[in-house]
């Protein structure tokens, strides 16, 4: 990603309605506040990343967008529709797909059946094509179509979680820590696939990551979250060069 491209992108976004917009969202777990009024935008065709430390509320924001847990205050709009109070499965039907934290594949079902589950939203309209496509993206999965999901390695499970999300042909893809617990080589592979999806298919990606260096390098724009608040935002390059970000998230050099 060149710096020019990111700036261009940001300039382009200036006048447009964002695809996903989060305004003043507050989420609680019981009485404990997890998100303290978050504002965030994701524009069409962008890769936006959210970085932050453990327990900052990144995954909570991701899950709140999907209505589980529900935002107690604030609004979330997607493609002009208010989805704040919509049930999770209806949100998923609006062509938002999610690869949730911890992968959450179906362990006793085969890889093929897992992918079928991903395609069930649009009624298997383009199942064969989509299967072919994810098999090209993840040749590993193609080899293991008939294997049970739970028997895959961590990296393969992550690939399956992303592939399953792609089966519904989403406009917006939400990825929660796709690099978690994976070998550097596989992380690289997964990030290059995300980039490919964005550049070739124009898929909008919202990426929650701890691996700040890779995520910011990949993303057009980024947000930094600290204990339930967005504290900083900017292009990926800006954030990468920001001394505060460097001190907090990139200490110890490049991963």
């Amino acid at each position, binding site marked *: 990603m060149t710096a020019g491209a990111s700036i261009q992108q940001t300039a382009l976004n200036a006048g447009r309605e964002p695809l996903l917009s989060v305004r003043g969202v507050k989420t609680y777990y019981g009485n404990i506040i997890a998100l303290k009024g978050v504002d965030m935008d994701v524009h069409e065709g962008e890769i936006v990343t959210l970085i932050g430390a453990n327990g900052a509320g990144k995954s909570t924001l991701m899950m709140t967008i999907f209505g589980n847990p529900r935002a107690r205050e604030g609004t979330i709009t997607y493609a002009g529709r208010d989805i704040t109070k919509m049930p999770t499965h209806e949100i998923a039907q609006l062509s938002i*797909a999610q690869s*949730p934290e911890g992968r959450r594949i179906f362990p006793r079902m085969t890889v093929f059946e897992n992918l079928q589950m991903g395609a069930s939203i649009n009624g*298997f309209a383009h199942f064969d094509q989509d299967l072919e496509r994810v098999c090209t993206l993840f040749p590993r999965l193609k080899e293991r179509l008939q294997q049970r999901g739970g028997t895959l390695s961590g990296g393969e499970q992550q690939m399956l979680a992303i592939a399953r999300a792609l089966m519904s042909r989403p406009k917006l893809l939400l990825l929660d820590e796709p690099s978690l617990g994976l070998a550097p080589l596989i992380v690289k592979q997964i990030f290059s696939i995300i980039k490919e999806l964005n550049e070739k298919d124009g898929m909008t990606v919202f990426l929650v990551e701890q691996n700040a260096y890779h995520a910011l390098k990949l993303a057009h724009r980024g947000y930094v979250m600290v204990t339930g608040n967005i504290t900083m935002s900017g292009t990926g390059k800006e954030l990468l060069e920001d001394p505060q970000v460097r001190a907090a998230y990139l200490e110890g050099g490049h991963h």
Partner: protein
Amino acid sequence: MNAPSITASAQTEAVTKTFDLSAALKDAFRSALITFGLSIPILSFRTEQSGADLFLSSRWGLALIVTAIVFGLRLLIHAFTASRAYRKAIPSPRQATELVHAQPSAFQHVSRFAIPFFLGVAIAFPVLIYLIQGGLNESRYWIDLGILILTYVMLGWGLNIVVGLAGLLDLGYVAFYAVGAYSYALLSTTFGLSFWICLPLAGILAAFWGMILGFPVLRLRGDYLAIVTLAFGEIIRLVLINWVDVTNGAAGISSIPRATFFGIPFTASEDGFAATFGLEFNGMHRMIFLYYLILALALLTNFVTMRLRKLPVGRAWEALREDEIACRSLGINTTNTKLTAFAIGAMFGGFAGSFFAVRQGFVSPESFNFLESAIILAIVVMGGMGSQIGVAIAAIVLVGGPEVLRNLTFLKAVFGEGFDPNEYRLLLFGLGMVAMMVWRPRGLISEREPSVILKERKAISGSLVKEGHG
């Protein structure tokens, strides 16, 4: 214990699928011989006192039975260790690093032979019994037992939809059985409707009650769900006892009309079944008809379940069992999915219930206590949650087992004249459960059969392995 050569060869050489039968037989024979030798001083003679005299009576039969049991068990152990060695030598489907497409799962091993075998036996059962027992009246007991087992197979398959596929632990399944039974009992005695009209009605009513149970428990999982469903089962039973005006309370409903052969009654009269088909009247005709009726109902349950598993709703059930949150974020309406599971499972419970009523001719709340739910659940859990053939085997073992024990008269010789295996039924149940937990914690057939088997893709993946992608 002289270790059979089978295990040793398993680790070193290529393992053959069939275990060394002659070696196993030899070893079993040796063990049997030792047992027989030992039983001569221990079992074969018995002292009996008659007045002041002491007699020695021989019990060779008992000694021979014990010897035969040892022989059989020894052979079983060999078969078991051989198959285990085979399994160890072959990469299991659980192993992630190996490609295992071509390796048929344990389920496929079992199902290839077991399904046609069980089906054949089930269909031919009345004929076989007739031939063995040599008469209709003599086979009454066995046909009765067959009906009982098949009823539980059907109930197990029905509950399997809720527990095995959708993963919703239901401890009150007997409630739907009761709803089905009382639906038929009340509809037929009050309105004089025939069995064939009441059967679908009972199913619909039970499904309706399934949904009623479903709504309050939608948000519950695991233990909490189990408690609420348990309570639901008890509520239904208590309502049946206390709503005397409608259900006749604890006295139950008697003289429920019997099923007809598509309108032809099983009576000795002119237009009865026997006269119509030119047979001599025999009460057993009705029993055999009931046997085939419950067989058909059970097979219907199985067929519908197998079909549903291949449809999106069935796959959604299984996905729900695996991960509810993932399900929701894939756009599956978990509310509807759970309700359909409850409703369809309950519907089959209702069918079985109305069959129960028509068979007994009498229903009372006492037939629908918690123990019934526990037995049905035990069948599903023992069979391996979600496995159809496993559930059938478990039903045969758990329901037929105590009956078989009752017929083993030599047990009386061992434990004394007053021994009634039925009294130890629950003890054996418990022992069986503990044994299952130790050896097969996920049920008899724990391997889940994929709903889609990709044949042509094996070749693709096979060629990729050779290229070194594996």
